[in-house]
């Protein structure tokens, strides 16, 4: 769509876009700066922006005081594990809904989405009781299953949308060509839906990585991921803004790096189907 926009207007819109972008990015920038301050500088009023004595002592303190590698490992296992488990369950589900829809398929999809509107705290008590009863409280497996269940509606919805883009005739052609259901999914459906599956995986790893409610409430030490790791620095006995910031930066760095490298794939996946 060609539309003539005058230069001053262009400048105005660009400035506005940058302004909004900076506003969104500001907390992360502030956390980053604070993580290199001393605790005293961190709470100074008025705040110091860049001209302070940069120090990495917060990072070494955090690393010495807590088990960062364990939390990192837990985060990776929980985020990747819950996503892959979700994909394994969601691919056949989305296949069925996209290619052999029944009368109630739309209702099922809406119902699945509606579970995302349920306040999580509503099922907190039963879940904690179940976890204690099954003796899986503070275990990775519990978090993998819980986070998988929480993100499953989104995974199914995304895959369903991608699968719907694949013409049914191509799958029928595979059937005519002698492919069994399994081979049809492996050789034809999956390769064609690969960009969609990849962005679904990426997005869900990010969602699972950032999930704080369940990871904080269902863990103590052994299975505690980076979210819990950050939370443990906001202790009631004293505010350690600089250390809290250092912990936060260490927790979000891996996912930001991953997001940065896969941003093309993410954007492509999320807009897939919007443009024919």
């Amino acid at each position: 769509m060609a539309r003539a926009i005058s230069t001053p207007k262009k400048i105005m819109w660009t400035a506005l876009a940058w302004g909004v972008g900076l506003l969104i990015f500001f907390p992360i920038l502030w956390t980053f700066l604070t993580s290199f301050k001393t605790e005293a500088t961190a709470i100074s009023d008025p705040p110091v922006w860049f001209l302070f004595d940069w120090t990495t002592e917060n990072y070494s303190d955090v690393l010495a005081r807590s088990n960062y590698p364990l939390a990192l490992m837990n985060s990776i296992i929980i985020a990747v594990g819950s996503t892959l488990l979700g994909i394994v369950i969601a691919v056949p589900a989305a296949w069925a809904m996209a290619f052999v829809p029944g009368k109630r398929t739309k209702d099922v999809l809406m119902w699945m989405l509606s579970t995302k509107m349920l306040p999580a705290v509503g099922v907190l008590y039963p879940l904690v009781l179940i976890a204690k009863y099954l003796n899986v409280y503070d275990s990775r497996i519990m978090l993998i299953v819980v986070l998988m269940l929480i993100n499953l509606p989104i995974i199914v919805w995304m895959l369903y949308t991608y699968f719907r883009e694949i013409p049914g005739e191509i799958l029928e052609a595979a059937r005519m060509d002698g492919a069994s259901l399994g081979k049809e999914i492996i050789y034809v459906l999956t390769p064609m839906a690969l960009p969609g599956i990849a962005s679904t995986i990426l997005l869900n790893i990010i969602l699972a990585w950032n999930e704080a409610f369940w990871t904080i409430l269902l863990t103590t030490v052994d299975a505690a991921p980076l979210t819990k790791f950050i939370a443990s620095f906001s202790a009631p006995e004293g505010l350690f803004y600089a250390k809290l910031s250092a912990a936060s930066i260490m927790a979000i760095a891996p996912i930001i790096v991953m997001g940065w490298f896969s941003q093309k794939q993410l954007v492509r996946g999320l807009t897939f189907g919007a443009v024919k």
Partner: protein
Amino acid sequence: MGRITLDRVQKKFGDVEVIPPLDLIIEDGEFVVFVGPSGCGKSTLLRLIAGLEDVSGGEIRIDGRPATDLPPAKRGLAMVFQSYALYPHMSVRKNIAFPLKMAGMAQDEQDRRIAKAATALNLTDYLDRRPGQLSGGQRQRVAIGRAIVREPAAFLFDEPLSNLDAALRVGMRMEISELHKTLATTMIYVTHDQVEAMTMADKIVVLRAGHVEQVGSPLELYKTPRNTFVAGFIGSPKMNLLTGAAAAAHGAATIGIRPEHLDVVDSGGTFTGRVGVAEHLGSDTFFHVHVPEMAEPMTVRAGGEVGLTHGDTIHLTPRAAHIHRFDAQGLRIA
């Protein structure tokens, strides 16, 4: 071998009966065309034979063996889709090889068959391209190639030419006809285009609302349409169907006269009217004539160049031997 028998085959979608119980025999090696207006159930019938839809009743036999409950893969049939349905992520070679790979065929036999099909279809230079890099006609050839390498019992074509432009369509029509002569394999071809049906078929099955209206060779259908529907559907331009006094004069409720069976005479004639539109094609001239006592304009095909134009008075006489008579139910009177 590819003799396909449909025995009381029926299809319902919920409570809607799309195809009422239907009998049909397709002989080995025949080129059968299913033709009818859109929504007549011709594609559904093809998909029932393919196994892509389940029948609601009746039986399908392929070469005498019951096939009703076989999955598509086990029926030994190959299908060419309207949208070509090529695998976009595979090269042309892999597309053509896919059915052979699924059948677990040895690699050297696969290569031999692919080379043979590629030569026959002029695809040798394109084997390593992706479908997205090919033109519509080439894609259609790849789809045909994928069908022929399997050496199936029968080929099923679902409106394969409707996505091509007019010039290409005529060319591909010839190629498919020639392929049928070469392979001598049963082919079932679905189209809504009666010209395709007339030019390609050994046997035409005319369908309307799931019912078989008539089965016969193109010329049988042209010469002796069983009812007014077939009479109006087969032939181009359409047959003139006249009711009222003109029909009563021949002892019928409706009479049908093809445009090519109306002679333009200098004076007198059975019908006198005014030329609405004159289409001069050089080889032929088509007139759309408004006859005062008729509700619909009549179409006339005059050979060569006839110098009449819009507004001129025209006198027409039908050839008596070519008047088709139909009763009040629309059925042919012998």
